[in-house]
């Protein structure tokens, strides 16, 4: 089992690049802030998650400031690294939020 569902604001995106076989690939950082219940107590949670979208999903308008909700799985950044990266499988962009920000 390896599923993570998380929402947040896109903090930064890298320029879109392509894998050698030609799949589009977008790396971005998701900034998450929410309130959660832990041991029956309410608390604040903040974190930044490195995420990557590969394939058609990378062509969605993920921009800095987009409010998005993603579902995906976690994997190591590379064989030599212990950093985790969220690989996006499903993505919902809150269009309204984006428009408001860009206005």
């Amino acid at each position, binding site marked *: 089992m390896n599923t993570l569902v998380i929402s947040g604001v896109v903090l930064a995106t890298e320029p879109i690049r392509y*894998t*050698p*076989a*030609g799949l589009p*690939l977008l790396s971005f950082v998701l900034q998450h802030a929410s309130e959660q219940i832990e041991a029956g107590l309410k608390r604040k949670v903040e974190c930044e998650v490195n995420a990557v979208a*590969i*394939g058609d999903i990378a062509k969605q308008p993920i921009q800095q400031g987009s409010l998005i909700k993603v579902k995906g799985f976690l*994997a190591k950044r590379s*064989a*030599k690294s212990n950093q985790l990266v969220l690989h996006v499988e499903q993505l919902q962009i809150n269009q309204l939020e984006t428009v408001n920000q860009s206005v």
Partner: protein
Amino acid sequence: MPPIILNIALDVPLNRTFDYLNGDFVAHVGSRVVVSFAGRNLVGVVVGIAQTSDYPIEKLKSVSHVFDDVVFDKDTFKLLQFCANYYHYPLGQALISALPLRLRQIKPAVSRKQFAYSLADDADVSQIPARKVLMHRIVALLRGQPNMTEAELGLVSTGWRKAIAELVQLNMVSTQEVLAIKASMPSSANAPQLNTEQEKVINCVLALTHKFKPWLLFGITGSGKTEIYIQVLQQILNQKNAQGIGAQVLVLVPEINLTPQLEARFRSRLSQFSLVTLHSNLSESERLQNWLAASSGAAKIVIGTRLSVFTPMPHLKMIVMDEEHDSSYKQQDGMRYHARDVAMVRAKQLNIPIILGSATPSLETWFNATSAPDETHKNAQKQQYGLLSLTQRAVENAVLPNIFCVDIAKSPTENGLSPLLIKALRERLSKGEQSLLFINRRGYAPVLHCNACQWVAPCTRCSARLVVHLSQKRLKCHHCGHEQKIPVQCPSCGNADMRPIGQATQRLEQTLQALLPAARIARVDRDSMRNKNALTDLLTQVHNQEIDILVGTQMLAKGHDFPNLTLVGVIDTDSALYSHDFRAGERLFAQLMQVAGRAGRAEKAGEVLIQTAFPQHALFHTLRAQDYVSFANECLQERQIMQFPPVSFFALLRAEANDYAQVQQFLNQAINIARLLKSEVMIYDPIRPQMERLKGLERAQLLLQANSRVALQRLLKMWMPQISALPLAAKIRWSLDIDPLEF
């Protein structure tokens, strides 16, 4: 009348000749014949004529045809015979493979005839309809210039053939068959002023032109070696023999299609002498024409690659070998000859001088040219090489470029380029000068790597990695030609985000385009130069200042002369420093000297930046000082200590098969035979070469080492027939390489 029996050499892998009766034909030694052999018709060459045979005469077959041409004269025949012996290669195969393809075929060898056209005296122009504009134009041209060649007419219009055919039919134009030697350009170029060094060298060579004399012309890059060849050859070509026939000369070059400038210079400077070229880029028809022109004596100058060393030339008076250190002079399959050694033997047999030219001579040649004649040595009476040195650049004020090493361990590179090199490129760009970046790897990146599981894309048939060719989205093996699509995901773990690792020409070109968008960048490698004229076109562009930065492989390193090029950057050569081949250092030094020599050949000073992680390496030390002599002498000392060539002599028995066990067994049997033969030759145990698998075959090899060629040959002479007779010898692929260059 006793029967006439012809000993015929055939293109079969058997080291013997075959006896046939002459039938009703008249044959000479050197004649081409057609015989029926094992149910097939084969072209063979008569190597002997006898009256008796070891076989019952009534069982001998007759030849089915004898061609009129005698394809080998006595001298060439002797040379090939020597080579077949020395390289332990079947004579028949050696002879036939030295012929142009058209002469190896049974159908009559014809090449398209070429004609020259002249206007008939009584030509009546009014017969030509007024609307036939082209015909009128051609007639007008012919009136002014009789004997127009096809090439000249081709410049008038592409439809000239049809027009001329009509004119010929109307009897208005006469045709005359001409020998298809390319028209030489008018002698426009004037001889440049020689410096005193060059004059001295020319006088030295011309003082001894009537006997065998090997010269080593050791001249730094840009010192005007080509000019020396031209002026010396001019004198030789002016000689005539007693019958008034002019002399012929043979000029050997590593890869002619890479050096169109050299050919052009010979054509323009020696335009009064007919010149032909012989190389693999010619069509078979051209090749046959040129070969016939050389062997008939009609062509006075032959410029060719290694194979042309066997071209019969009845009036050959001098051999010149440019860039004698180049490894492309060594044939890597079939008869594995080294054209330098063959040329030396040929010069000796004909008793003529030979000039080997190079800025970085091979250690073999350097050893021959510098070692003092040793009285105790067996080869004491061997002809001493004459050493001719050119230490200055020919163009006045042109100096050797400054060479710097950029330590990439200290200044990290950005996509393969160090900040220092980028800065230098920008400077050249703003000054309007040209730069060259040398990286000896074509493709986009040498490795496709999955960083999730460390998988790299391997070739399934070779011990090698597949090279990424990104623009075609393909992975290619540069050893066996295997190609596949770039996989969408890692076959091992499924990760889609695989990365091309390392630098190659395409990637460097891309990086530069992004970095210097204003620069006009051209890439020169085997992929971009597929087209026959691509390189010539590109060189013209470079000369017309239409290119700012050249990115290329070794194709760019040789012989080019770009006056406005002032910066050479060398990317990633360190792999050669780790190589286990004892010649890797020598090769790297030669290559870097050649590349560095492209910079600052005219008035502007040149600069060379070499990116390396080992700037302290001894090789770079001598390279920075551009001191070939110290480098060569140090290397020779090492070879002396290690007893490696040129101090000793190698032969390599290579074997390959699908099943490695058979290879092992074969080599073990070969060793056992060799060790029973008493000799001073050292026989090493079999090892696997760097490429353990190639094209799906498992490989291994056996090295023999001796202190003299004679001892080595003596062993091989006894050993080879016994190896050939082994049952496994017929099952696996194997070959013998005398004086191997690669291991």
